[in-house]
């Protein structure tokens, strides 16, 4: 077994610098790498390019990095829930690239899988497709999209082991698995970190080969963005 060793959040984020590009897992506030984000805030690294489906809310998730003006550019598919984001975007302080959600996921997966670029129909004929190579397959036009190139991936899993194997829970899975191995270094934070052999190999979602560093998150707030419930009859 290749032991990824349990590290602390401090060790796991070593080498993080200004001007880097990060891939960050999560959909809304679901399955975000809370502990890595908090550490990035404490390290105060600046001029970051962050690829994440959403940009958090004002006081949680990536919103915390925005409050401290650490992000230079966001690449996301939907950014509706953050006033500070809106302010920085409209004032021109923050550069924003909005891309289709499926394209965002596939640009991660392509990076993970060593595919430099791929064709997708999403965005053809819209401003997303402007200036991009296009090609018709089976009578349908597609545009060429490129794999991301990033320095770090920060992902969050439910359970992990010392070999770096990961299991995700519910819809907290989202972008996390496709970001593993999609950057030079993948940092996984987990709720439960177990000795190798504790997880059933049949049930592992992401093999440890895609993960360089793993640590157990100190705490998880798991904030709910839209609480919707029914009353018991």
């Amino acid at each position, binding site marked *: 077994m290749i032991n990824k060793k349990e590290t602390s959040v401090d060790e796991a984020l070593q080498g993080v610098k200004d001007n880097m590009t990060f891939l960050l897992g999560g*959909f*809304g*506030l*679901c*399955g975000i790498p809370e502990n890595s984000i908090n550490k990035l805030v404490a390290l105060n690294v600046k001029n970051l390019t962050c690829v994440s*489906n959403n940009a958090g809310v004002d006081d949680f998730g990536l919103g915390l990095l925005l409050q401290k003006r650490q992000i230079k550019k966001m690449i*996301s*598919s*939907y*950014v*509706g*829930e953050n006033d500070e984001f*809106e302010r920085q*975007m*409209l004032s021109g302080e923050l550069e924003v690239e*909005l891309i*289709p*959600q*499926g*394209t*965002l*996921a*596939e640009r*991660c*997966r392509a990076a993970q899988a060593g595919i430099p670029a791929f064709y*997708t*129909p*999403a*965005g*053809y*004929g*819209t*401003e*997303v497709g402007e200036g991009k190579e296009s090609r018709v397959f089976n009578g349908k036009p597609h545009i060429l999209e490129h794999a991301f190139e990033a320095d770090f991936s920060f992902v969050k899993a*439910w359970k992990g082991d010392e070999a770096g194997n990961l299991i*995700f*829970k*519910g*819809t*907290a*899975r*989202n*972008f*996390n*698995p*496709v970001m593993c191995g999609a950057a030079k270094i993948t940092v996984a934070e987990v709720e439960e970190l177990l000795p190798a052999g504790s997880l059933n190999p049949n049930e592992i*979602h992401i093999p440890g080969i895609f993960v360089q560093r793993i640590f157990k998150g100190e705490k998880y707030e*798991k*904030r*709910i*963005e*839209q*609480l*919707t*419930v*029914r*009353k*018991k009859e």
Partner: protein
Amino acid sequence: MSLNKEQIAQRIAKEVKDGYYVNLGIGIPTLVANYVRDDISVEFQSENGVLGMGPFPFEGEEDADIINAGKQTITTLKGASFFDSSLSFGMIRGQHVDLTILGAMEVAENGDIANWKIPGKMVKGMGGAMDLVASAENIIVAMMHTNRAGESKLLKECSLPLTGVKCVKKIVTNLAVLEVTKDGFLLLERAPGVSVDEIKNATAGRLIVNENTPEMVL
């Protein structure tokens, strides 16, 4: 009488057939799930990574790790599955999802759709809408026939930035059910008590009207 949003959803629910995998957008489309007949088997997909979505959880049983694409807490039904975002859009792009229902700001008579951006206003993003409309075989748009200013949303050409081209197949509004054909919007059904003239007046794009357009049955 023009339909309210619940009634639009109720009419669209009739388009959902036994054995369908269905993706519902935010807004009126979400309401469709409430009106699907319970004697047919349907699974709802949410692009953040769940198939087999159920109703909202009971109070106190919510789980922050189980949400839909609107970031609302949900439950899952028997036979449900979770998956990553790439696989989720593989389902969509690969045309494994049978029906996509979404809202729109404008639809053009050639099937172009605009629903993500109003120039000069804060742009929130397209989310999964561009992937959905570019790939889905069967797209139904749920929307009001006119905007708040009373202007038609069924146009000759979209004025807003496009989400996708030539992709909408059917539109259900508060006034009518229409099919997008190569010659324009074909009027299929009228809302109860709504006249063909009212629909004509509210439609800026080319409208094709056959004799005796029936009233919708909800």
